[in-house]
């Protein structure tokens, strides 16, 4: 479909998709397969500080895309440029084909944002806040339904100041979703939530995605990225150092997997190290750790059994996103760092 110059064509096309709500000024003639978010060679400096050096990524419609990275890596600056809060020094950004600077008004209508560390007036009630933000949008979501899903239904008449940290965070997520955005940008949305509330929020986000909303998630919780994200970009020193599915990033991080067990009887290490699947055999006290690839566990256990040795207390240790993070950035994720 070429540029037709017809407004109705543009509207029709978007309505035909799984997006909800009208899209008054979306330009006609964009194909449905265009990405939700396109960032190319984004650069942003503050004086001599290079916050974002060169960041490119693209997010497909309906995807949950994670942005990971250590503190100060440039994640938040990149996001702020993407939603039009900051003007980049270089690079191009398109959200559903729109330029965040030139098409500011339309961008704010279709992109819902939850920024880090944003509070609200202490003496406003939850319902009053929601009603006000609802009035900003052309076709807002049902506030009652939204706070129901977010577990705030009983809090409608409570003052903001009486909410717990987790409830405030969920209200913030609610405000990001209240305009029925086509793209939701959530910066550290589960920080400060207890594990149960975090899991509830993950389910909510998956539910929102199932309605066709594209989600860009800035997080430092590896578990969150592994559980939720279709793909993640790992940003370090203002650059994308890796971009793939969480599983593939994890697999790349280590040369393979390892199995750890307690042997029932002594055996010679060479019994295992000569197997084609095995790359290394180590002894940790009474335990044995075998590293390798392929059908490692089967090979190890069958070989031991044939030699009359039983492997007890078997633990399979596969690498995860945290390993990828450490390997690619040389640092632990914020979560681990904070606990150390």
């Amino acid at each position, binding site marked *: 479909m070429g540029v037709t110059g017809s407004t109705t064509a543009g509207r029709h096309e978007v309505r035909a998709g799984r997006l909800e709500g009208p899209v008054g000024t979306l330009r006609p003639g964009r194909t449905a397969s265009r990405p939700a978010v396109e960032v190319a060679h984004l650069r942003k400096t503050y004086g001599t500080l290079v916050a974002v050096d060169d960041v490119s990524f693209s997010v497909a419609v309906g995807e949950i895309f994670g942005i990971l990275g250590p503190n100060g890596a440039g994640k938040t600056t990149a996001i702020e440029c993407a*939603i039009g809060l900051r003007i980049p020094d270089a690079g191009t950004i398109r959200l559903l084909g729109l330029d965040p600077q030139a098409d500011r008004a339309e961008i704010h209508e279709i992109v819902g944002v939850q*920024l880090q560390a944003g*509070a609200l007036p202490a003496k406003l009630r939850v319902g009053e806040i929601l009603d006000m933000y609802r009035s900003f949008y052309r076709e807002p979501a049902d506030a009652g339904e939204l706070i129901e899903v977010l577990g705030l239904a009983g809090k409608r008449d409570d003052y903001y100041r009486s909410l717990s940290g987790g409830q405030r965070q969920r209200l913030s997520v609610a405000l990001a979703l209240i*305009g029925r955005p086509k793209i939701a940008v959530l910066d550290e949305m589960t920080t400060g939530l207890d594990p149960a509330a975090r899991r509830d929020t993950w389910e909510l986000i998956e539910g929102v995605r199932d309605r066709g909303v594209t989600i860009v998630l800035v997080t430092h919780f590896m578990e969150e990225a592994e559980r939720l994200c279709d793909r993640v970009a790992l940003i370090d020193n203002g650059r994308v150092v890796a971009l793939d599915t969480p599983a593939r990033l994890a697999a790349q991080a280590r040369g393979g997997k390892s199995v750890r067990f307690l042997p029932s009887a002594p055996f010679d290490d060479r019994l295992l190290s000569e197997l084609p699947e095995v790359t290394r055999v180590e002894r940790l006290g009474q335990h044995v750790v075998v590293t390798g690839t392929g059908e490692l566990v089967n090979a190890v256990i069958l070989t031991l059994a044939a030699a009359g040795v039983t492997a007890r207390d078997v633990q399979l240790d596969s690498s995860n996103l945290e390993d990828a993070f450490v390997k690619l950035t040389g640092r632990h994720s914020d979560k681990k760092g904070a606990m150390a």
Partner: protein
Amino acid sequence: MSSLSLPLPRTARGTAFGQIVLNETRLARRLPLAVIGSIGLPVVLMIIFGELPSFHQPVPGRDGLILFNTYVPIIMALGLAMLALWGLPGPLVSYRELGILRRLSTTPVPPSWLLAAQVVIQLCVALAGLIIVAVTSVAAFGAPVPKSPGGLVLSCLLSIAGLFALGLLIAALAPTAGSVNVIGRLTLFPLLFFAGLWLPRALMPGVLQDISNYTPLGAAVEAIQDSMQTGFPPAAPLLVLAAYALVFAFMARRFFRWE
């Protein structure tokens, strides 16, 4: 295409602004500091001064000067000063500090609407304070009916403009809600001194009176007092107030940060 690029249809824009004003009104009611400072305090002062017999006697050797009548404009100006120093900048700076202005910049509604809503609400508070004091001083405490009602209205509006511009400038420059407080305390006493709260302008030595003429609150008191006691006020205090309004508003616009 240009009409379509409006973020909201005209009616919805009206609703959104109405919702902001509604919530800001709720906040002003629930945290009534501005109302207490700019309506409550002036009314209490007026009642105290109004009940003091000595305030109703002519000051000896001062050509029939009656202290109470002199204090009515000072009390009105005091209410405006409280709004300029706390009522207006307080909420705006705390909204910036809390990230509320920043959050609004990500919605179809620009954060300037919140500023506009604040100005609307504080304007209502200012007018209510001025009207209550002006009317009760005449009705309950025997102050004379203003000689030039038109001059009084003009003087009050220009005083509001000058002091609100000062309030917006403080909102632009103060980095935190705490610093609004510090700026307020440092500014309030000189402003009130030159307004004549401790020594009415008529009793000030010449130099102090000259300085007073060029302070926002001194000019406000001069304009309001002349409208009440003499007739249409002279151009000087009105021009001083207008100049403050323009200069402070320009500087506020120049320095205001939304985050």
